[in-house]
């Protein structure tokens, strides 16, 4: 048990760096470059932690504690998600609610820390981030609730049962669920086409622009928290894909494979398309809600139609 816990913890803490590195590597590959090592984000992290940091005179204590909340919220939300070994630390009905609201706390702190600098750019980033994530959540809840109805399990473990439990409906639901979670990952992880992490123009950023004034340790913590969040959402996708009753070692391998595959997919999407124009981002995120409605109707069909 303890070993599993440790394995999960190590993977949760370090794989996010490699995932980010892998995304960058994929982008480099499509661009025909050699690209930095996949461990580059880890080196960056260590370097940032060692550095001094510049803090705006306008800021207050909120700016100082927000990065801690951001990391704490993703780590504690991670307690409820089945991770690399297929075990969640805490298994309870209602875990989806605790998961979402704990992440919400981290997001809230990040938003107000952006407002704390008094910069118009950061306010703009905060406004966009708050707005886009507001429409992600309902679709996520609809998805998890309908999966719960489908499998009859009131926790995140219901995701494991989707494919095995209900034949063709299960497979269809799983396909849509993967798409929904992938869009959620792109939105929450601030990737193209919702946001462009590599843009050099503040006006077009969402997530990065909120961190304009963070440097050193603060910046390191924020970007680490964000990549952990990406891994958490990938874990949910992994639950849908990996069969439940397989040996632990095999599960870990599958999990890493899925995480790697998702990183490559994100990198490919990023190389293949540009960021959507800001007014049209809503339309992209609303794909989630419409697919969630499709999932609900599939579940209804399964429950009432036979």
């Amino acid at each position, binding site marked *: 048990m303890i070993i599993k816990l440790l394995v999960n913890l190590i993977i949760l803490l370090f794989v996010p760096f490699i995932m980010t590195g892998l995304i960058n590597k994929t982008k480099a590959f499509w661009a025909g470059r050699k690209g930095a090592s996949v461990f580059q984000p880890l080196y960056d992290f260590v370097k940032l932690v060692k550095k001094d*940091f510049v803090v705006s005179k306008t800021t207050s204590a909120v700016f100082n504690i927000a990065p801690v909340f951001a990391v704490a919220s993703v780590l504690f939300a991670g307690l409820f998600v089945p991770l690399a070994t297929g075990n969640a630390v805490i298994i309870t009905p209602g875990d989806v609610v605790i998961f979402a609201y704990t992440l919400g706390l981290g997001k809230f702190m990040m938003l107000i820390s952006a407002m704390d600098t008094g910069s118009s750019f950061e306010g703009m980033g905060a406004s966009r981030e708050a707005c886009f994530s507001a429409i992600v959540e309902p679709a996520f809840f609809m998805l998890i609730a309908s999966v719960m109805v489908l499998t009859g399990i009131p926790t995140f473990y219901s995701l494991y049962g989707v494919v095995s439990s209900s034949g063709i409906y299960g497979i269809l639901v799983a396909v849509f669920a993967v798409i929904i979670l992938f869009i959620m990952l792109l939105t929450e992880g601030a990737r193209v086409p919702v946001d462009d992490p590599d843009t050099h123009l503040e006006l077009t950023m969402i997530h990065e622009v909120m961190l304009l004034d963070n440097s050193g340790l603060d910046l390191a913590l924020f970007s680490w928290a964000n990549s952990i969040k990406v891994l958490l959402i990938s874990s949910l996708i992994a639950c849908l894909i990996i069969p439940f009753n397989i040996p632990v070692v095999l599960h870990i391998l599958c999990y890493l494979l899925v995480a790697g595959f998702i990183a490559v997919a994100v990198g490919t999407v990023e190389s293949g398309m540009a960021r959507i124009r800001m007014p049209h981002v809503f339309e992209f995120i609303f794909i989630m809600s419409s697919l969630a409605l499709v999932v609900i109707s599939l579940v209804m069909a399964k429950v009432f139609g036979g």
Partner: protein
Amino acid sequence: MNNYFIGILILLLSGFAAGLFNRKFKTIVMSVLAAAGSIFCLIPAIDVLSGSRALSRTFEYNQVFGQVTFSIDHLSAFFILVITIMSMLSVIYANGYLKNYLESKNINSHLVFFPMLIASMLLVVTCQNSLLFLVFWEIMSISSFFLVIFDSSKKEVLQAGVKYLIFMHISVIFIIIAFALMSIKSGSFDFASFNSVMQNNTSFANIVFILAFIGFGTKAGFVPFHNWLPEAHPAAPSHVSAVMSGVMIKMGIYGIIRMIILTGTPSKMIAFGVLLAAVISSLYGVLYAISQHDLKKLLAYHSIENIGIIGIGLGAGMLGQAYSNPLASLLGYSGAILHVLNHSIFKELLFLAAGNIYLKTRTKDIEVLGGLIKVMPATAVLFLIGSAAICAFPPLNGFISELLIYLGLFRTLEINHLPVMLVVFFAISGLALVGTMAILCFSKVFGVVFLGMPRSEKSANVTSDCGLSMTIPMGILAVLALLIGVYPQFVFFDIKHIVYCVFPMDLVNLMQVSMVPLNIMQIVACFAILFIAFVTVIVLLKYYLTKGKKVMHITWGCGYNRVNTRMQYTASSYAGPFLSMLKPLFKKIFDIEKPKNLFPSSAHFHLEIEDIEEAYIINPLLKLDEKFLTKFESLQSGNIQSYLKYGLVFLLAVIIVSLLIG
């Protein structure tokens, strides 16, 4: 029970007693007496909640009213607890707040009506006689009306007050009709006798429930009967809006819960209706909250949202009851009841903080504020705790009740019935959307009001925080919010008995069913403590490790170094993208003066968002009404003889009609 009546008496007299003293001591006398009265009333409530039997006392009142019973069961005791604690804290706060208004001409009536409002609410939740209930209900509405128009020299305050009064009187008509229908059938005014009438006749019960729901729902602020709320709350002084929003609108919820108890098992249609109305209310409330720039108006819209959340809990409970799923009922009802307490805690905290801000800056417009955390650190921290609680973040209290409500909704999904599932899916996604919109709204409010730099003179001139008499009651509220969040299992243990009152099942069954949520609550408690410990340790670590590594500099302006405070993001711009996404749901009123010429001298932009219900339903109705009524203008001659003539004609008409029917 004696303590209770002594408490009521002290409350009723405290305002008059305060009138005997001179300016300096008036408010202190009122505060002390009212707090003492509340404590007296609290004693029997705590007795009942800690496990003794329900208390009651019956009086032979007179021919008209018949027997009058006052009783304190678990539900009443819970509401007494909420009323007394919240009133006590706001009465202490009022002491500090009113220091600035001692010269006001309305101060004496204010000091009489404030404790009277508290007393009338306490009477409403214990009275078991429908006729006397209505009397207390009226006293509650009227005393709060006088509290709202405290600042009656302002035109908009008076308008808001009158609007409130009209809404309350329209709503009470529905309650009267509902009670009248029941008492005609049962032949008595006693709630106990209504019970049998309601439980034997489903269609009759449905009609009565709908009428009562409209009546009580108006008080509570359910959409579409919410219009008085966003106007009355900003008009009233802060401690009054705290009590009105924190406690008084919950009397509507109390009425609805009493109606659920009277109907026994609610019918399916009613359960659907309540759930749908609640989801729409909560979405509507938070949507308009995002669009507001008036701090207190924004908080008032959040009250509508939270009343909606309470309603979702009640709806889940009723669905569970109608389709006999006891666990769903337990979860839904306990979530709703706990949210009544939680909402009154954090909403009162937020309103009192808004009062502090108003006292120091003399404005409620958040667009001109900013940077207050540096000069008002205590208020800022307390407001932050309040906003985290209202956004339902763990480890605070709002999260616990929303979690219970979510769990209730998840359980109702077990009911294998297509309409139920559709409605519940709607409710779940609605609740999730409300949660994230609350994050948007409160990050906006906190960011714009407390963070960044002052946006105008008004906030730049603030030099100090409010005194301890104002921050201590708020501190107590913040501690309560944290305690409920960290020890939810104990709270749930008590709430269970209150739910038992609404939804009776045998005790063995209740114990069994409540094991599931109790377990979850324990998990949440551990989670909360660990989370707090983790964050504290890391924050301290970070503080010590990074000492001396910090360099202070101005905010990065992309190379532009002459940034001024007007360049900061404002509340309108923060909410802009979200509001433009939902354009059709708002009526925007722009006030723009564009810059002209080469060297523009003046320009401004102001955006006001009007309630669509008010713009498209209420105002046209009022216009129609006015058109109709002006036709009778000629009757109003100002001549006393002709008025006597009208009276005579009316009396004759009544006599003739009654003879004809008779």
